[in-house]
Each structure stands twice: as structure tokens, then as C-alpha cells.
């Protein structure tokens, strides 16, 4: 019982540590789109 309790607490603490790192990671997560290296093509229309 005691081991289960300690294990859960440790697990939650570790995750808390990971998550706080996740939050500060958020700033760098962007999926930018660079322009093409080929001719700038005329855009094609889509409905």
C-alpha cells in the first residue's frame, strides 16, 4: 500500500516536471511554411 502510494506520488511529480517543460516548450512549436524555391506559380482557384 505504502509502495503504491509512494509510486503514485513520484509518478505525478515526474509528470508535473515533464509538463512544466512542455509548457515552456510550447513557444517553439510552430509549423512554418517557407515560400517555394521554384517559380512563383499563378495560384489555382478552388471553391
Amino acid at each position, binding site marked *: 500500500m505504502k509502495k503504491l502510494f509512494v509510486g503514485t506520488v513520484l*509518478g505525478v511529480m515526474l509528470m508535473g516536471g515533464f509538463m512544466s517543460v512542455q509548457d515552456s516548450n510550447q*513557444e*517553439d512549436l510552430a509549423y*512554418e*511554411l*517557407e515560400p517555394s524555391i*521554384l517559380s*512563383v506559380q499563378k*495560384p489555382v482557384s478552388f471553391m
Partner: protein
Amino acid sequence: MMEVGSYIKLQRVQQGMTQDELASGIVSMSYLSKIENQRAEASPEVISLLCTRLGIEIDNEKDIDIKDKCEEWYGMLFEVNDKEEIKKRYEELNKLMETVNSNNYLMFEIYKVRYFLVIGEHESALEQINSLNEVSNTFDNLHLYYWYKFKGNYNSLTGDNNQALKLYELAEEKLKQIDLKNDEAADLYYTIAVAHSKIRNTLESIDYAERAIEVFQIEYNFIRCAQCHIVLGISYRRIKMYDKAIKNYNLAKHLGGLERSNQIIQLANVNLGYLYSSKGDSHSAVHYYGEVVEDSEVDLQTKLPTATSLTREYFKIGEYDRSKIMLDKGLKLFKRLNYDEAFKAHYYALTAYKYAMEKDEAKFESILINEFLPYLTKHKEYVYLVDFANMLGEHFEKQAKYKEALKYYKLANLTYGKLIIL
């Protein structure tokens, strides 16, 4: 005239003929090899026999006309142009080239690599590269410059940016040995800037984009300047200089407006969306993404990534109804792109969100664990990998499956570490 030996060799290689097949009955194989590599000069009779077997003629008179036509066509491969018109000119030139031993022949063959990339035929570009490999030892410095550059373009477009950069470096070296117009050098610098940006070499990207923009500004080439501003915007965002990033994006939009290029304006909008998303300003992110997705003139290759980002943004702020609408739209766009492999990551991302919103835990876990995360690992798509490994971690955490949760949080963190090293 281009050395006839090289001309014969190239024709032979392109027709899939061996030296033995060509030489048989005319000269020995070893002598043919010497002719092809310009170590021996054959008699006109021998040349004539070899050419007859290859089905080609030698006509010396048409060369000057060809040069002008070629130059015009080359220009079309770098600026805004109609693909159909480019193809038409290509067919004309190709026919002309088939019957003439021209100084321009080799350059034309090298430019074919770029041509195939512009019309989207990557396989043909590779075939052309492979056949030209056989004669690349006869290229002069000018040939080599374009050879390296266009091979680099091929690698850029097939996702091998590191190899592309090595080739661009070789091209840049050649630039010092030849006399080219400034806008040609600028185009190379711009291409290098984009390649650096794709592998997050932020400072190098800024450096090359600045060099390119210097030339394009002098020439009032607004479209090219706008492209450089977008590359700069992306880089400045990555080093958290947000004001400078926004300034560059807005400049790109302004120049795009002057040239009536909706494509440029919307590309700037997509990236502005990413900027605000990364700052946690979902409201602004949604606004910019929305502009792009609602615009009927935006090409599919830009619209699909935007739809995915908008799905993600709505999901993040709990607007699940809107997320679902955007998700469906995204999946339809993927279908209209004929399920193009290049956009597979978006298909996976949208499907993962779909299962998450439908609360189909089994399918959600399955697609992430068995398909999406391995796919992202294989393709080194670290940004997506951090995001979705994290999402899976959160999913397991909510179910109190802490061991599983830790595993994916750990993956997210390790991947993030790789991202910041890049």
C-alpha cells in the same frame, strides 16, 4: 561547337545503348570510349556512322537562333509563368535540339532538371540527373554551377535539405569562378536561405536571405523581396524577435499587394498564424488561419497545412464544433491532393483529432502509436512529434495510465531536445 564526343555519349546514354552496341562494326569499344571522352578525334566518316546508328544529324547552321530561344526559356523557369506555356516552349526546343549538335545542347539538358521540377515530375528530374551523371566530367564551370544548383533543387524538393545544402555550397564556390548576373546569385542565396530555414539553421537563413534581398531590392523585384521577407519572418520568430518577424511578414504582404500576388499575401498570413499560435494568442492565430482557409484562390498545398493548424488551434481552445468542421475540410483537401504522400502527416494529424473528438480511445491510440508517431520519427518531423507525443501522454494521464503517459512525455521531451539542437 560542343565537343561531338560528349554529344554522342549523351545521346547514347539517353537511348540506353551500350558502348558495345554503338561501336559494333564501326570502331572498337575502346576507341569509342576515347572519342566519347575526347581523348581521340574520329574521322568525319566514323562520326557520321555513329550518328546514323543513334538516329541523329549534325547541322551547324541553326545555333544562333537556338541560343536566344534557350535563354528565353531558362528565364521562364525562374519567374511567374504559365506551366502550359513552359511545356509548349520546351517541346519546341527539344525537337530543335534533337537534330542539332549545338553548344547549347548541354546547358539545355542541364536545365531540363529544373524544368521537370517546375512541372512537378520529380521522377523525370531524377532520370535526367542520372543520365547527365555520365557526362558531368565534361562540364565547364558554368555548366557545373547550374548542375550543382539544380541537383540541389531536386534534393530540396524531395526533402533532403542537408544534401541540398552541400550541393548549393558547391554551386556557391563555382559562382566565384564565373561571371553571372547579380539576380542569378541572389536566386541561389534565396534558395540557400530556404534550405537553412527548413533545417532551422536560423542565423544562416537570415544571412542568406539578407544577401538575396539586397539584390532584389535594387532591381525592384517585389515578389522576390516578399519571399525573402517571409523567410526572414520565420527566422526572427524562431529567435523570439516577434516584432521584427511581424514587420517582415507585413512587408511581405505589402509587396504582395503591390504585385497583386494573393499567394504571397496568404503565405504571410499562414506564418502570422503560426507566430501568434506559438505565442499562445489563439484568437489572433485563428483570425489569420481563417483568412487563408476561406480564400478560394489559395492553392491546396498551402491550404491543407493551414486547415490542420486551424483544427489544432480550435481543439486547443476547446471549440470542438469548429475543430470538427475544419478537420472535415482538411480531410477533403487531402483527398483532392490525391492522397499525396508529401501531406501524409496532415492526414494523420487530422484523423488523430477526429478520433480524439469522437472519444474513440482505441482508434486514437492505435493511429498514434502504430502509424503517426513512427511516421514522424522516420521523417524527422520533430515539431509534430513533440506535439503529438505530448497529446498521447496527456491522453494516457487522463486515464491514470501513468507508465504509458511517462513514456510519451519522455519522447516529447527528448524530441524537443533534438529540435533545439538543430
